[in-house]
């Protein structure tokens, strides 16, 4: 096996040093009764070449094979990824390094993540950002826990029902063993979170609102800030589409205390949903409550600039059961990916791409409405929107996928049972007018 360097002679010499007769004897401390009696029943080892064949066969059984038109979002977005991003990120020095516990030989990772943190704070207008979390949903669940743990009395978290359904489910899972309660804020007829309903709630430690929300609509975070001030609870802003912040007013400007979101749009492939990038930011005040790693700037013994992991006293490896979270490995390489993407796009690039997403989505919505779909909400959206499809669209949709490699929206019924025939559409900068026109023609 090409990964195993040991020659016969190596093994013999090493066994002589360890004083074992053979490799099996190395496991002498394991009681025989504990040893497994059966060899591992796994497929026989494949050569690199047979592996290629087998894997391509599996890969080709997914919709992604070849180039397809993706009009689906809902937390996973199809964006252009510059060639330099995968190229740089796949450098061994980034890819095959461990967590930068030895800063002297990890300055590349450390400066890169420090830059990532900085750019995320710029994107969100927040004071601080962590070195990443698993994904938007788990980051949001951590934010809920922060709000609840910080609160002296209140033990409920108010959660917009227009937060990504999966994110709400994760929060529920995380909160389940605790005494804490999660209450949902209903949606109003405009596809926005009902702020009045929130204002009427009691005993709230924090309120979580996603904008653009799961329907793609842009929430008025300002009114939730006001409501939260009233209740002296924390405002948690969340998002699934990081690129929206290239153009929309940032959560920081609305005064969010915590921000959690998904960063997959910043240079990562969809990869069947993961690994993405959990983004987590907060105000300076909440610094010591945030979960996971931070990189900080410092100096070395010669006074040279350098970077280290810092504030580790919040973390499990120091605080163990008293840690602010149990997170250890995060999604560091994806944070680096986002850093490279953001550095490439820059201030003007990200603005332009974000605007283009909106342009395409507006075009698509108009086209669909002209083709007989019903616009469901009339307020502003970013790159996603809901429409009600004419009956029979479900079949048409499958046909479009099979014949034209075009994936038209995501049915909402499984998330919101009363939304029969409602679809969540997404159009990003990757979608051509041509494809949208084709869709409109096909569904006419």
């Amino acid at each position, binding site marked *: *096996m090409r990964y*195993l360097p040991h020659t016969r002679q190596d093994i013999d010499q090493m066994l002589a040093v*360890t004083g074992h007769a053979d490799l099996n004897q*190395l496991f002498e*401390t*394991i009681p025989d009764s504990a040893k*497994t009696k059966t060899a*591992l029943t*796994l497929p026989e080892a494949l050569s*690199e070449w047979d592996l290629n064949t087998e894997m391509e066969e*599996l*890969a080709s059984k*997914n*919709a992604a094979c070849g180039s397809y038109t993706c009009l*689906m979002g809902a937390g996973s977005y199809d964006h252009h990824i*510059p060639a*330099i991003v995968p190229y740089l990120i796949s450098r061994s*020095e*980034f*890819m*095959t390094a*461990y967590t930068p516990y030895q*800063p*002297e*030989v*990890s*300055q590349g*990772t450390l400066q*890169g*993540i420090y830059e990532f943190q900085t750019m995320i704070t710029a994107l969100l207008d927040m004071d601080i*950002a962590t070195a990443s979390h*698993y*994904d938007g949903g*788990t980051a949001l669940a951590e934010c809920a826990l922060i709000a609840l743990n910080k609160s002296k009395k209140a033990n409920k978290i108010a959660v917009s029902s227009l937060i990504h359904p*999966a994110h709400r489910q994760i929060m529920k899972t995380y909160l*389940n063993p605790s005494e804490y309660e999660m209450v949902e804020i209903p949606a109003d007829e405009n596809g926005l979170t009902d702020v009045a309903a929130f204002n009427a709630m009691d005993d709230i430690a924090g309120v979580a609102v996603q904008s653009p929300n799961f329907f793609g609509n842009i929430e008025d975070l300002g009114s939730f800030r006001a409501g939260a001030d009233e209740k002296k609870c924390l405002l948690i802003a969340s998002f699934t589409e990081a690129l929206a912040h290239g153009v929309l007013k940032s959560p920081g400007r609305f005064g969010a205390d915590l921000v959690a979101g998904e960063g997959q749009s910043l240079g990562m492939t*969809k990869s*069947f949903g*993961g690994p993405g990038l959990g983004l987590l930011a907060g105000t300076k005040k909440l610094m010591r409550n945030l979960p996971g790693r931070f*990189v900080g700037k410092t100096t070395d*013994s*010669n006074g*040279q600039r350098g970077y280290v992991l810092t*504030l580790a006293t919040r973390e*499990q490896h120091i605080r163990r*059961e008293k*840690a602010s979270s149990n997170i250890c490995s*995060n999604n*560091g*390489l*994806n944070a*680096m990916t986002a850093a490279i993407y953001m*550095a*490439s796009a*820059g*201030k003007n690039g990200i603005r332009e*791409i974000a605007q283009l997403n909106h*342009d395409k989505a507006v*075009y698509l919505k108009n086209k669909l409405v002209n083709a007989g779909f019903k616009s469901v909400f009339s307020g*502003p959206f970013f790159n996603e929107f809901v429409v009600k499809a004419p009956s029979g669209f479900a079949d048409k949709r499958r046909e479009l996928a099979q014949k034209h490699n075009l994936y038209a929206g995501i049915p909402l019924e499984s998330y919101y049972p009363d939304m029969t025939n409602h679809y969540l559409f997404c159009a990003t900068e990757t979608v051509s007018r041509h494809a949208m026109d084709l869709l409109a023609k096909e569904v006419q």
Partner: protein
Amino acid sequence: MTKPGTSGLIFNEPELWEKSREGRCGISVPRSDVPRAAFDPALTNDAPELPQLSELDVVRHFTRLSQWNFCIDSGMYPLGSCTMKYNPKTNEVQAARTGFAAAHPLAGDLFSQGALKLMYKLEQMLGEITGFPAVTLQPAAGAHGELTGMLIIHAWHAKQGKQRSKILVPDTAHGTNPASATLCGYQSVNIKSGPDGILEPDTVAEAMDEDTAGIMITNPNTLGLFEENIKEICDIVHAKGGLVYGDGANMNAVMGIIKPGELGIDVLHLNLHKTFSTPHGGGGPGSGPVAVVEDLIPFLPVPKVQKENDTYSFITDCPDTIGRMHTFYGHFGVMVKAFAYILSMGGDGLKRASQLAVLNANYIKESLKTTLDLPYDRPCMHECVFTDKTVQEHHISTMDMAKRLLDYGFHPPTVYFPLVVDAAFMVEPTETESKDDIDQFIEAVKAIVKEAASNPEKLKSAPHLPKVTRLDEVTAARKPCLKG
């Protein structure tokens, strides 16, 4: 012997925004083919203040940064508890296939059969390796797997009608263990390991009671020792109505040798980014699948992958499930790599990997035990733990030796963990390191211990070769500067 470490030309590089110049852009902005749809200005901000660079600026910036990193591909990385084995390049090729990388998670089962099948098969294979009937791939890392597993234990107790308040955690456990237990509301009860570095049944029996949900046990433990009493301990815990959580992050020692599911363990997580060769990426992403015994299957997170005839689908209709742990299905891209690894190794290959990992560790232990203090002098598994006792007389610490190893061209071992050993120096070579490289490492440690006597200053001021010297971590934490 020439040591691998030497010095060479590398490059300073400012922070991104110091290079930024108004008007540069490193991305290719797509051509627009639709009309502009302006936003109501009230909804928008100024563009975010991201740095402005040309494409070459970006390439050079991150290329230079990368050159400041140590990595597996540049040298031996014997970090205990981290299993820094070779990350095969073919795994990256597999994960990058368009059919995987461009797959949308909500394309629907019909259009995701390849991904579903891969996940299904990977679950099966991990079940076979660990000896459990079911596996979830959803957890995003080891600690996330622990949380998943502990939530399952919590849900099981709830289902039994009586929740418990405590959990036993040995002193050798990784910090994530107690932290995960806390997230489930369990209070950690610290269990001392015995004089041999392993848990003694009596100690467990003493602590275990009917308000204790169970025990979290790492086997092989973080001293690199096999918990020989594992079966007895499981029996004790089970007898009191508790469950046994297994931290399987050290599975690299025992593939094909033991199956945790056969020993009485009820829930176990694996770290694909350790045992199954997926790259650690300077911090993640990992993947922490969780395996469970039959009785706990109903509690696994959803969605689950199901196979009917030759068709795969996601199911969510599981009334006892703990719920969802990840927005989609976990770190699919990491799963692809681990799957490719298992297919490449086969069952015999995995067993051989474990044997050689253990051989390498024992070889180091035997070769260095007269040089460094070895607190537990018994056959080890995949790693061995030393202390700095033999160099303390020169006022040299584990940290000094670790930093000096950098000058010799080796990544230091894990230091000051596990906590049960003073100033631990914990070496895990993994099976992909050759005898030759290991011999170089042994020589380096011996040379450093000699230097501790002959030239202690050299150690205290180490490292000397990397781009920066020791960093002021105290100031970093006292006056945190977390952004530029």
